[in-house]
């Protein structure tokens, strides 16, 4: 249990998707102009990561990693299909996003109206594929750890984007030099936030 909590907290603060690895920056910069749109996108990312990382973990464990196919027949135990990972993960992510969009549209039109536009945008978000690839690299031992990692990465991304949106809303009233306005100052502020988040590096759980 405490292993799960440690993975969760680590993936939110220490291995933050945005500040440590810069994944998902494209939509992060484009959408963070207001807090409202940022919370929508952030929630969608948590949702999608929480579903796709466990799904990809199952695919990796039972189909792709070296020796994985031995449940089909012991003869295939020597196979290593990990070169297929990229294509498999992307296919799974795209399908799950499509599925989630349909399910949300049916069961909660209110949620769909606030989230719906962002869901297709998320399918090619670097953070989603990155979450699955990091999970594959970390070689977790069971699906609980993979799920917790996915949810934690999503929450970390959510914190980052809501934080920068709040700062950008306030920055509109500041006296930023013209060439720095908009994109330039956002980059610098994100860098500073990244430095701040590094204080978490020393946490031992």
């Amino acid at each position, binding site marked *: 249990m405490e292993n799960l909590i440690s993975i969760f907290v680590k993936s939110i603060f220490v291995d933050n998707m945005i500040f440590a690895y810069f994944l998902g920056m494209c939509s992060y910069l484009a959408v963070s102009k207001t807090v409202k749109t940022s919370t929508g996108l952030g929630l969608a990312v948590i949702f999608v990561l929480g579903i796709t990382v466990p799904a990809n973990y199952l695919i990796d464990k039972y*189909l792709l990693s070296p020796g994985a196919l031995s449940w089909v027949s012991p003869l*295939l135990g020597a196979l290593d299909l990990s070169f*297929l990972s990229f294509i498999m993960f992307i296919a799974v992510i795209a399908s799950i996003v499509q599925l989630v969009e349909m399910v949300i549209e049916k069961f909660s039109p209110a949620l769909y109206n606030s989230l719906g536009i962002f869901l297709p945008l998320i399918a090619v978000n670097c953070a989603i594929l990155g979450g699955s690839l990091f999970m594959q690299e970390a070689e977790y031992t069971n699906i609980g750890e993979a799920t917790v990692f996915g949810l934690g990465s999503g929450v970390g991304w959510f914190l980052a984007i809501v934080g920068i949106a709040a700062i950008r809303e306030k920055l509109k009233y500041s006296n930023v030099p013209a060439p720095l306005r908009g994109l330039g100052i956002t980059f610098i502020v994100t860098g500073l936030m990244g430095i701040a988040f590094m204080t978490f590096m020393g946490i031992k759980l």
Partner: protein
Amino acid sequence: MILLLSNLVVILSAILVFLAVVSILVGVLLFAKKKLTPQGEVTLTINDDKEIVVEPGSTILQPLVTMACFYHRPVVAAVHAECVNAKFLRVAALFWPPRSTSLRAVSKPKTGV
């Protein structure tokens, strides 16, 4: 020779695994589409005289643009004026089973649009 055979096994199993996973995904998606999105057609009545039949879940913009081309009526302008985010308009089946949805032009379309 053994290398060729073992390579063949890898290639075949890669193809099989890929096909299997993609078929399962496509099957799940089609199944979900059948169960979750409302089926049948929705009739749009525009400006009280023109009726078009569209499927639910498609965007309004495409059939309206086609109409605007054919009838030189600024139909699209009226829709723009009404809806907040015209880019992602969805025709939802408001009633089940689907009935007619009336879309009225509530303001005069802008001239020159």
